[in-house]
Each structure stands twice: as C-alpha cells, then as structure tokens.
C-alpha cells in the first residue's frame, strides 16, 4: 500500500507515492535518482548517507521516506548555488579532505550542519561532531583542516 508524500528536495517540491518501509535514502537514490547520497552500512553507524532534513543533519538510512513528508531535504546535489560550490565543498577540495569520495557527501553534509550551530569550532569540537561519520581513507586529518578552512570563510 503506497503513501503519498510531499517533500521539498533541493529546492524542488516533489510528490511521490512510497511504500511504508521505503527508507529515505532509497527514496532519494532510486525514486529521485539523487545518487550522491551513499549507503555505507544501513545502520546509521557510518554516516555516508547524511543529508539535511529541515536544515539538520540526519542519517537517511534510518529515516523512512514517509517521515520526510512535509519537510525540506537537502542532499549533496543541492549544496551548490548555481555553479558555485558551497564553502565546505570548496574547503574539502582545497585541503584534500577526500580520497575515494564515498563518505564525502555525508561528511560535507554533517560538517556544514555543524558550522550552522558553531561557526568557529575548535579541533576537538570538530572531531566530536564527526563521531558519527566514518572515513577510512583520510585519517580525518584533512577533513578537520577542511572544516577549519570553511569556518574561517573559505579560501
């Protein structure tokens, strides 16, 4: 039995019918073809699937699509303004904050959400805020630097 949901995703209102058990991440990836959000563990432990729901970072593998009804969702594809990257995207590029790139969309969504609450976090605060996002490539060193760069206003 389908459920009708209405979600604003990356600035566009979409209406779709989804199954009750459909996860938000599968709705984004399969119904809307927004494959930038990755699935790493399906148990909310790796953070690869982090998106914003009503401006807050959530793990889209442990949200049902029906829970997104009436909300505003932002994914990595929605972070650019026109051709201009979000300062956090730019900072990840400048600081080599990614290698394989698989955790990166989640990292960017999580860290940019952090800066909305704390515009000038210490290294310790950045590391605490990243507890829920696993990166196996970078040892977090350059991710921390990227967040610091973005906090300081980009380049």
């Amino acid at each position: 039995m389908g459920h009708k949901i209405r979600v604003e995703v990356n600035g566009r209102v979409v209406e779709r019918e989804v199954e009750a058990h459909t996860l938000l991440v599968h709705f984004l990836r399969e119904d809307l073809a927004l494959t930038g959000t990755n699935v790493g563990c399906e148990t909310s432990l790796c953070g690869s699937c982090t998106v914003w729901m009503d401006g807050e970072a959530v793990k889209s593998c442990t949200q049902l699509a029906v829970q997104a009804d009436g909300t505003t969702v932002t994914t990595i594809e929605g972070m650019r303004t026109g051709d201009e990257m979000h300062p956090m995207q730019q900072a990840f590029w400048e600081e080599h904050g990614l290698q394989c790139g698989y955790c990166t969309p989640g990292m960017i969504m999580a860290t940019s959400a952090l800066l909305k609450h704390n515009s000038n976090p210490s290294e310790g605060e950045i590391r605490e805020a990243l507890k829920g996002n696993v990166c196996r490539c970078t040892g977090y060193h350059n991710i921390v630097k990227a967040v610091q760069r973005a906090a300081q206003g980009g380049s």
Partner: protein
Amino acid sequence: MADQGKARILGSAIKRREDPALITGKGRYTDDFTLPHMTHAVIVRSPYSHAHVRSIDTAAAAATPGVLAVYTAADIESSGAPGTVPTAWLLPDIKTPEHSLLAKGRVRYVGDGVAVVVGETRQAARAAAELVEVDYDPLDAVVDPQKATAEGAPQLFEDVPRNISFDWDLGDKEKTDLGFEGAAHTVSAELRNNRLIPHAIEPRAALADFDEHKGELTLRMTTQNPHVHRLLLSLASIGLPEHKIRVIAPEVGGGFGSKIHLYPDEAIAAWCAMQLKRPVKWVATRSETNLTDAHGRDHVTRAEMALDAEGRILGLRVDTHAAMGAYLSTFAPAVPTYLYGTLLSGQYDIPAIYVHVLGVFTNTAPVDAYRGAGRPEATFVIERMMDLAAAQLGQDPAEIRRRNFVAADAFPYATQVALEYDSGNYEPALDKALEAAGYAALRTEQKSRHDAGSSKWLGIGLSSYIEACGLAPSQVAGALGAQAGLWESAKIRVHPTGTVTVYTGSSSHGQGHETTFSQIVADRLGLEVEQVEVIHGDTKEVQFGMGTYGSRSAAVGGSAIANGVDRAIEKGRRIAAHMLEAAEEDVVFDDGQYTVKGVPDQAKSWGDVVLASYLAHDLPEGMEPGMETTAFYNPSNFVYPFGTHVAVVEVDSETGDVELLRYIAVDDCGNVINPMIVDGQVHGGVAQGIGQALWEQAVYDDNGQLLTGTLMDYALPRAHMLVSFELDRTVTPCPHNPLGVKGIGEAGAIASPAAVVNAVMDAVSHRGIRNIDMPLTPEKVWRAIQ
C-alpha cells in the same frame, strides 16, 4: 630538464582533478548505476561456520511473487561454467582445495554462500532469501590457526591433514642457529597480529549485463584490478572468453586490498545475468562485507633474537602460524610468505635470519592482502623485538636501532631473506623524527611524571620500518609462485593538437591517479595538467594492466607512463630535427620546445611537431605517421620506502585507557609527485595502523561466529579517537625507475602498529609488563597493570 623559472608541475601540491565530481555528488559508484529491466541478487549465506549441507529446498523462495530464479551450486555446475574462484599465487607443495562459487555439500565459514535469489526488486529478493530452506548438519569448527594444526582438530578439507595448506620457510636455519649459540643475549616473545576487517566504506557491489546476441558480458564492479578480474572470471568462474567480458571499475569507494581479490558474489551476479538475460545487480550489506570481505593479518608468531653484548643483532628466528580462513583467497599464499618473511630484516644489518610459516585453514572468512599485506606483520615482529631487546639490554630504543641500521654506504644491500635493498639512508629519517618529537624532552617529562607519582604514564614508541613495494619484478614474482606478471602498461595517445590521453592499467580507487599521472605527463611535455586526460578502470578502453595494490601505481604505473611519454618525445625529436634541418643528436626537448643545441631561436613547439606527425606531409624517411606509444614497464626490483614513526601516548594507570597524544611520521618515498597526495596516503595508513594497535579486531567465538560483524562491535577509528599527525620526509630517490619514486600507500599502516604498541609498552614497562596483544583496549591494559 632544466627549470626555467616556471614552477615544476611534478612535485607540486595541485588540487585533485577528480574532486569536483566527488564533492558535488556526481561521482558514480557501482550501485549508482541503474539499467533497464535490472534485477537484484541476494546471496543466501551459511549461519554455521562448519556444516554438511544435507539439502536445499528452494521451492518456497522460488514461488514468491517478484522472484525470477533461485540457484544453487548444482545449477552452476549443470550450466557448464567452471564455477570457481581461483588462487593465483602458488607455493611449493601448496594444497589448494576447490573454492566453488556456491557451496557444494559443505560450508566452511559463516557467510559461505549456498544459494542465490534473483528478484525484480531488492526487497523481493531479500524476503525470498529468508525462505530458502537449508538443512545443515553442523560440524565442529576451529578458528585459531595454532589450534587448527593440532592432531584431532576439526579438519576443513579431507585431503588437507592438520589444515596445513603450506609449510614454507626462508633463510639459513643452521647459520641462524649458530648465531644464537654465541650470543650474549637472547630475546624471545610470542606476538599476535590481530585479525582485521578492511572496511572500505563502499561495500562490494556488481552490476552485470549480458548481451545474448553478441555474447558479451559487461560487469561494473568494485575492483582494484579490472583486467585481472576479467581474466580470472573468464578462466575459472563463468567461462566466457576473455574478449567477450568487459569489466568496468566506476568510482570505487576504497579498497585497501579487499577489492583486489575475486570473490564468488561478483561472479555469481555475472553468471545469473547470463542465465536470465537481464541485468543483475548485487550489493553487499555492511554485515555481508564484514563476513565475507577477505580479512587481514591473523598471525601467531614466536620470535627470537640473538644479540651480542653491545646490542648488535646476531640472528633472528621467526615461526608463524598464519590463518588463511576457509579457502585460499586470490593472492593469500603470497601474503604471509614472500610479502612477510622477506621483510624481516627491517632496516637492520642482520647476519642470519630464518623464518618458518604454516598457512592454515580455519573456519573463518578467508584472509588475504589488506593494506600492507605481510609487511605490517613483519614490521611488527622486528620492531617489537627491537624494543624488547632494548629493554632487556638497558639501551635506548633509538640507540639500539641506530647501532643496527644498514649503513648509508652499504647499498645496494642484500638481506638474508632474499631482497636486495636498492637504496636507503636510515639515520637521517630517525634523527628527523626524534627531533620533531622532541625526544629528549619527552624522556625528561616521562621521568618527571614517574617521579611525581602521576597516574598518567607517558610512553614513547618508535617504529623504523622498511617496505618492499612497487609490486613487482615479474621474473621474481614468477619464480616465487605468482601466476601473473606484475608489470604495468600505459598507452600515450597524443592528439593532433598536442594534448594527450593516457590509458593506464593502474586503476584508481581514491589514490588520485588522474591528478598524479597527468602531472607526470604534463611535466615531461611542458603541458598544463588540463591538457592531459587519464583513462583507467575499463577493460574495453584500456590495454591489459595489473591494477592498483602493493603501493605500485606511481613506481610501476607511473614509470610506464613516463617511458611511454619519453618514446613520444623521442619520435618528436626525429621529426623536429627533420623540420629544423638539424642533426637528431643536436635537438633537445625542454618545456614543450624542441631546440637545436646552441641555436636557441631554432625551435619547434611540441604542438607543431605533433601536428606534423599527423599531417605526414614530410616525415623523416621510413617513419610512420601519428603519435601514439605503448609502454609495458617491468620493474627491475621492488622499491624500498622507509622511515621512522614516533607515537606518544598517555596510559591512565587507573583505567587502562590509552590516549594517543602525538604521532610523528618521517617517511622517505623517494621523489614526490604530489606532496598533498603523499601526505594524505600517510594520514590514512597511519590511522588504519593506529586502529589495529588500539581498537580493531575481528573476533570469532569458538564456534566460528563473528562477534564483530557490525560497526557497533568492530571499533573503526573515528575522528575523536585520533589526533592531527605531524609529518615530514627525507628524499632518497629510487635509483632504478625513471621517476625516482617509491610507494607510499601502505607505509603508514606498516609503521604505525609497532610505534603505538611500543609506546604503550614503554609507558607500562616499569611494571614489568613486556607484552600485551593488540588491540590494546583499556581492559587488556588495565588487567596487565593489576
């Protein structure tokens, strides 16, 4: 090439070309592809670590709406497909029992596949997989590699007594025993190298599409070596001719070794697509990756070191039980032998070494290469023994290392374990690391904390590592049992306007090849990196190549590219000489210009010469038109990066908690193509090694159940558990490849476990503690202190 005031592209920290797609969500990984009429495969896996399979009833699953087919080993067998995953590295007298794509009558580890369900949707296939009824008759299991060799231990294969797949040794036993006879000191220890799960964040995945009219299979998959996978799939798994298989590695989300090997699952997806004539996607869940990705390490080792009165090493004896898991994975036999035993001399001039290794089947996931592959295990043995020796002899750990280093003027240096170190200079790296750490001040602080009765004990640990990488000289690899050559290929296609497309057999899964390889080309040709395109990871586009592992991409893949470019330059030089009416030997190429020696205004640009090669209106006598070269680079030796790492830890004596305070890494990987990327590789490797030392372990219970099957139980390093690393380097160029480069991808993971464990032992040694097995969890450390 002379530097004409223009910044060199080679050696500069240019931003990665692959990043704009990856940071905007446009990178496409295997699971991001959807094909029309695509179906979904789910593997039914054994919940038992060891059991006979009495019967499999697929009727209920097959009758589920949305299910297209349920297959077992019998179906694969009757299709005529070879139906196996092979072992591609053999050793003398090795026992290589068949590993079939789906279990035939017996399962040998939790996760062993017994059936596959293909459905219209992932949900339908998953639900139906639950309905496959398998009647198991459980058998006793064995998970410890030492216990597995005992008489009467459960035996995995009828024809493999005591579960010993291979019994291998290296070095001169008699000479080593003699070294011990006259020794002033002997040091011995039992060292365990904990079993690890690689944890690429992208789970393994495959998307197979079979064109029945052309008889062609296209397989997108998570692979570090698409051509090798194509070859093995053709020969051993699905039986389709090699030229009818196209393997594509799209973006690959990390590998660390785990995506080198051929697993049953990707081959099963391919076989299913051939049966159903519809695309089949298979994507592992995280639990499946933990159960079935080849694990790393899992050694139990007894090591003994003999030293003279001054602390010079006289001999090293090493005896290792290496777990192979339930089947021999693709390159598994090489890891605890030629990638381990050969590294046991470390940075030291050791006159006699003998190593003996048993490769042992256990009821666990197969074990194969994981970042470092054998070299972290060797480094851990030698670097732990150096610290144990230092403690026993009352020497400083830095001094005992210095005393035993291979001298700077002794290169090339032949070890007692079959390697010839091409170059090295170990003391400057040690000195730089000690200086960066403030070693003397740390020792002072350690003492003052101790004198003050602080409960927070300071520990300082060194690890002076070497690795042999840049796999590998093909003749050597062949002599050692590899069923493949380990060269690399490059095709340099120069377009009429002078821009270049490079086709490399070295595919990337996060290493930044598109950036570094274009730097190599741009630097040589005087181009901008934007004028170079790098194509990799598609067997239909790229000539055969060996792939990315063993820190080989820059040293072997990069060297192939450099040689290919140089051949193009050379052809251009002949054309330029013809155009300039000069003798060929008088024409030189620098920064994109061919000039006549001593006549600088006589010049032809790279673009002019390339265009002339394609116009072919007036080429030198007998020269073919066009500008395209292919180079197959076969290295003459391994490359030997080295360095010293220093870990500084604080042990809370009341809780056993270990806090990493600082981590200093001084590495020497020869010439550097892109320092930003090199540093990034070190960061990642160091983090994985720290993880091994302090937190990570794949734990099986005695029944062979994986207790650390999720990220709740398997403690991956997270940001708050680590520190920012302090990096520096020395530069000792490799003397035998055209770029002077060595590998750096694995160095961090090779050096760091020993550095961290040595630091913790340094903190607790005043309590008479000599050794605690990794991972050094608070509980273990606390118990040792009590």
